C-alpha cells in the first residue's frame, strides 16, 4: 500500500504526516508513507483543501487534520 500525505508544509500538514506514520506503525501493515509537497503534483489530485490523504492514488480525505483513530480506519478499510 502506498499512502501519500499532500501538504505544502503548514503545521496541520506536518501533524497529519506524523499521525499517518504512527497509524501505519501501530496497525502493523506494509505501507510506504510519502509526503507530497510539490504543488504541481498535489494539483493533479484535484483537491482544493489541504492536507489531503491519498491511498493507492485515490483521494480518501481532504481538508481535514484527522485524528489517529480516523486515519487507522482509513488505512484498514
Amino acid at each position, binding site marked *: 500500500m502506498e499512502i501519500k500525505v499532500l*501538504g*505544502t*508544509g*503548514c503545521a*496541520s*500538514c506536518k501533524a497529519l504526516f506524523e499521525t499517518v506514520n504512527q497509524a501505519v506503525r501501530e496497525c502493523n501493515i506494509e505501507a510506504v508513507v510519502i509526503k507530497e509537497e510539490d*504543488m*504541481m503534483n*498535489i*494539483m493533479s489530485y*484535484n*483537491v*482544493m*483543501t*489541504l*492536507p489531503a490523504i491519498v491511498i493507492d492514488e485515490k483521494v480518501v480525505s481532504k*481538508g*481535514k*487534520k484527522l485524528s489517529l483513530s480516523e486515519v487507522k480506519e482509513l488505512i484498514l478499510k
Partner: protein
Amino acid sequence: MIQEFADWLIFNIIGLNSDSHLGSALNFFIYDTIKIIFLLFLISVIMGIVNAYLPIDRLRNFLMTRKLYGFQYLLASVFGAITPFCSCSSIPLFIGFVKGGIPLGVTFSFLITSPLVNEVAVAMFLGTFGLRITLIYLFSGILLGVAGGWILGKFRLDKYLTPWVRAIQVHSESETEEWKTERVTFFHRLPVILKDAWSIVKGVLIYIIIGISIGAAMHGYVPESFFEEHLSADKWYSVPIAVILAVPMYANAAGIVPVIQVFVAKGVPLGTAMAFMMSVVGLSIPEATMLKKVMTWRLIFIFFATITLFIILLGYIFNLVL
C-alpha cells in the same frame, strides 16, 4: 457571568487587590481570554454547520455553472468569508478555481476576503470591539474582496500567471464532478462539527493568549503620547504609513486584534487601526512567496499594490465616517 468568575479568581482566590495595577490587568486578561474563547467556539460551530452543508467543491460548482451577471464577485467574496481559512489551502483553492474556468477576477475576490474574514477574526472583533464594529469590519472585508476582484479582473492579468497555471487555465474543464450528497443526519454530524470547532480553538489558543498579553502589556507601558504623535487623525499621512508598514508583516487575527485595540484606546483613529490590521492579516511576505508558485512577480506586485491602495482608501473613509 464571566466577569464574576474573573473577579472571584483574581480577587478572592489569588487575593490581589482590585485597585492594584497587576490585579486589574490580570482580571482583564482572564475575562477577555475566556470571553473570546467562548465566542470563537460558538462561531466555529456555526461556520462548521454552514460548511458541512456547503463544502467548497459545491461552492465552486455553483460559481462555474451559473450565469450571475456580476454577482459572482460578491458570491466569491462571501464564500471566502465563510470557508475556514488555512494558509496552506489558498494555492490549491486558487488553482481549483482557475481549473474550473472561473475568471481570475472572481478568484481574486475569494482570495482577498478569505484571510480577512474568518471565524477567528470575527470572534476577536466581537470580543474586543462589540457588534457594531464587527459588522463594519465584516462588511468592509467583503467589499474589499468585491472591489479588488472586480478591478483586478478588468486589468486582464491572465498572461502574468506562471506558465503551468496558464496551461491549466486553457484546458479548464467545465464538466464538474457530481457532488456526492452524503445523507448524514444533523445529529450524526454534530459531534464532528463540535470536535472540529474545538480543534480550531485549540489551534489558535496560544496566539490569542499571546495577543491579549501583548495588548495588556502595551496598555500599561506604551505612553499615550507615542501614538498620538505618530498616528493621530490630523496627520494625513498616518493611514498610508500604517498600511504600508503592515504589508510585509504577518500575524493572524488572534494576535493582532488585541494590539489594535490598544492603539484605539490610546487615541489612534479606528480607521487607521483597522486598515493597519487588514494589511497585516491580508497581505504579507509569506503570502507573496506562496503566491509565487502560481503568479509572476509582476502579478503579485499588481495584486498587492491594488489591495494596499484599497485598504488605504478604506482607512480614510472609516476615519471620516466613524
